[in-house]
């Protein structure tokens, strides 16, 4: 009923609007028999000037209110650099935005026909046109050069640290499968064929490969501060995209094609919380948790490529810690092989069954 009534009200409003507009137009034409735009040009000149001011005020207000709420500063080595590049770019385009919008709206106001002047026949000016071609070209060349330099550095395979960590993350509808290489630092081979892929081994891990025996599955991504990590990425079913907003990391996960991203986290979760605890917005209390926002801060992994109906739910926590904390965490993890290795008779039964097995099993099938 409410919906119906509001519909009726809207229809009536439109009818009234049309009648007023019609009357207004008739009155404008009545005087001269022709539509006279002088008065309208005057009003619209002022309105455009007014809009210019409102637009800049709105932009400034958006900055003040929204910048503090944005994803905080980069927590990775390359992220600091790309953020700098982003800021330089935004500064340049901010200046151009300001100057061109002022020129556009001011000229529209200043030279509207109500001001009783004649237009100036001025078809071109080659010098001027060369100037405003060359200036953008030079500025853009600078931006291109800086961008290419950072880009090639991020993807420079030769410059990778030999002691980097390796973590494998595989996207599926609608979860992430996280596999760590264990003590040997090497991930076991995977074989994608009908004999290896099964609901209990959806990655197709080749258990005959000894490198797989100490690999373990995790529910969170643990990384070490200042230790480079190579993310080995893949997808089971459809495209996903491995997105770590705080680390400025994004790389698609493609079924059948391996991808990777190499980066170095520079702040532990704790350090980021400490940093944010000094920021006014992060000090405010989140009504949902009843705590100051910085206290519940965590790094997160999200999916950034539409992957189906629950695309928005593919969340995992990322934890950055010191090497010692990381080692302690690793020592608590059970190798996935424990649950699948052939059972020998002399092995005590209690060790194989029990909670560890169910836990790993659950992780493997991601139920």
């Amino acid at each position, binding site marked *: 009923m409410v919906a119906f009534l509001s519909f009726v009200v809207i229809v009536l409003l*439109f009818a009234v609007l*049309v009648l007023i*507009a019609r009357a207004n*137009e008739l009155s*404008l034409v009545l005087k001269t028999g022709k*539509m006279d*735009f002088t008065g*309208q*040009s005057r009003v619209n000149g002022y309105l455009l000037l007014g*809009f210019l001011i409102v*637009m800049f005020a*709105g932009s400034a207000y958006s900055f003040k209110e*929204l910048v503090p709420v*944005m*994803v905080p500063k980069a927590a990775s080595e390359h992220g600091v650099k790309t953020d700098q590049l*982003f800021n330089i*770019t935004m500064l340049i385009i901010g200046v151009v935005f300001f100057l061109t919008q002022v020129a*556009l*709206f001011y000229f*529209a106001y200043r*030279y*509207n*026909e109500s001001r009783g002047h004649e237009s*100036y026949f*001025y*078809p*071109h000016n080659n010098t001027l046109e060369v100037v*405003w071609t060359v200036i953008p070209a030079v500025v*853009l060349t600078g*931006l*291109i050069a800086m*961008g290419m330099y950072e*880009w090639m550095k*991020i993807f420079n395979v030769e410059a990778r640290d030999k002691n980097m960590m390796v973590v494998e993350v595989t996207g599926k509808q609608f979860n992430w499968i996280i596999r760590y290489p264990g003590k040997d630092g090497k991930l076991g081979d995977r074989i*994608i064929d*009908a004999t290896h*892929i099964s*609901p*209990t*081994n959806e990655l197709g891990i080749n258990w005959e490969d000894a490198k797989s025996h100490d690999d373990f599955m995790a529910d969170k991504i643990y990384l070490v501060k200042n230790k480079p990590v190579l993310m080995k990425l893949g997808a*089971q079913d*459809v*495209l996903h995209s491995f*997105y770590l*907003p705080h680390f400025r990391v*994004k*790389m698609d996960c*493609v*079924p*059948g094609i391996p991808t990777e991203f190499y980066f170095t986290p520079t702040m532990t979760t704790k350090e980021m919380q400490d940093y944010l605890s000094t920021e006014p917005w992060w000090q405010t209390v989140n009504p949902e948790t009843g705590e100051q926002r910085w206290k519940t801060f*965590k790094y997160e992994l*999200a999916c*950034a*490529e*539409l*992957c*189906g*109906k629950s*695309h*928005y739910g593919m969340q995992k926590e990322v934890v950055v810690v010191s090497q010692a904390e990381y080692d302690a965490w690793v020592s608590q993890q059970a190798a996935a092989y424990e649950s699948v290795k052939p059972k020998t008779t002399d092995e005590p039964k209690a060790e194989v069954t029990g909670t560890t097995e169910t836990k790993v099993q659950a992780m493997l099938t991601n139920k």
Partner: protein
Amino acid sequence: MQTAHTVEHAHAHDTHEEHHHHEETFLTKYIFSQDHKMIGKQFLITGIFWGIVGGLLSVLFRLQLGWPNETFPFLETFLGKWAEGGKISNEFYYALVTMHGTILVFFVLTGGLSGTFANLLIPYQIGARDMASPFINMLSYWFFLAAGVVMLFSFFVQTGPASGGWTAYPPLNGLRDTSVNLGSGIGFDLWILGMSLFIVSALLGGLNYVATVLNMRTKGMTMMKLPLTVWALMFTAVIGILSFPALLAGAVLLEFDRLLDTSFYLNNIIINGQLLGYKGGSPILFQHLFWFLGHPEVYIIILPAMGLVSEVLSVHSRKPIFGYKAMVLSIIAILVLSFIVWAHHMFVTGLNPNLGAIFTLFTLLIAIPSAIKVFNWIGTIWRGKVRLSSAALFAIGFVSMFITGGLTGIALGNSAIDIQLHDTMFVVAHFHIVMGVAAFFGMFAGVYHWFPRMYGKYMNETLGQIHFYITLVGAYAIFFPMHFMTGLPRRYYTYANFETFNNFDSLAAFISVAAIIVFLGQLVFVVNFFYSIFKGRELKGEKKADGYEYANPWGSTTMEWTAPIDRLHGNWPNEIPAVHRWPYDFNVNGKEFIQQTEPLKPGETEHS
């Protein structure tokens, strides 16, 4: 054949002006019309229909995004199972965003924009009686309509319309398995069919536009005397002809994967621990094929708007377009560059990093011709005598939007920055402003300006200006603050699952309110448009010796206003006038303006 027929018909007019030698029935005049003007109106009205549908879809998903925790019982009344309990389901949400994109990009801003103005303006402004092939032109509209009917039909199948994004990436859209993606059933088959019909329409239309401009210009109309509208529309058609076939091929192969179990785009797909039989394909191949059209497509959308705006700004500023040659050359530069930037949509697909660097280079280069155009538009207004009518206001709004949206492209086009920005709300803000809103502004400028040419009546100025301010303020209110959602992934049904993204609730609600207001504001245009067709202020002119009434409502120099107010089949009752000068002689030789058809005075040199 059809050309010969038209010319013959026109000759008949030459000799027996009042005598129509073949009867036009309602069916041949309004439905199966082969007259470029009528076909243009058919495209426009169909485009308006799709604009309303596409806009309405965005209002629906903005309800979800703005108030993710609320329910709207009336939604269940209208949508049934798609909105049980008054809350749009996540599956339907993805169908809404997918179809919103498809409809607005292709059916409104490609078909509705190019279709309308290429048909209306090319023959009129080059001085031709009709298109090179009026029959193919009619087919182009009918394929467009059929494509639309198929798309509309897909809303009513059990599993709903396509829901895997307007980019149709496989494997999400490559498996005909509705448990992977609900809209990937018959809904997506219909999407492919609809798009294929659409591409046929675009190709038939495009070939015709190019052939017409190249072959059918009136006497004296050299290429460098063409108004910028015609340049823009012709090059738009060229881009379409060269790029649409890639999408058609891509879409057909995708349907092969879906129906015939081929593996063009599929490899090692594992669903619930079961390995499917696809081997050796590449999902990335589809992205290359898609964006080989997809990126030129944004220029297919924006070039006609640029052409319309150049013309409208010049006429309403009573001043020549600044730097005509630079404007033509920058269109050509955009055309060439538009084909070598597509992979900037794919920076983070695992593409070879060297390619990423090259595509950054070309992408940022395309900013140069765009900048030239912006400076030239501003230069056109400078020291003009600007008549701030609805058409001029929308043209100015276009330039403002194009600046704002274009500038953020410089950040996105830089691959190193794009790692973070890719597939986030920053991108959504960028492309909506630069190719969505801006193209709409160009289209509106064109409709307000050429409505008298189409219908012999004016649109209501007051309503037009109300429409302008609602749209200008509203569109900025929607998309400017959206830039600050940098980092928030796009195509999210809710951000509630993430601590990181969950801080923009009040902004999301604000954007939704603005979106609803802007949508209602567009209805002001729709009401104005249809009201003015029937009840608008009459276009009055002077009767000439041939018995026809002629009018030039805005004081334009171009050819379309040298034809009578009546939309005659063949456009000119007598011989087509010859052209003697360029289209931008405003306030020169002591005259307020000089039409292109006016011969040079003795001693006057041609503008070059």
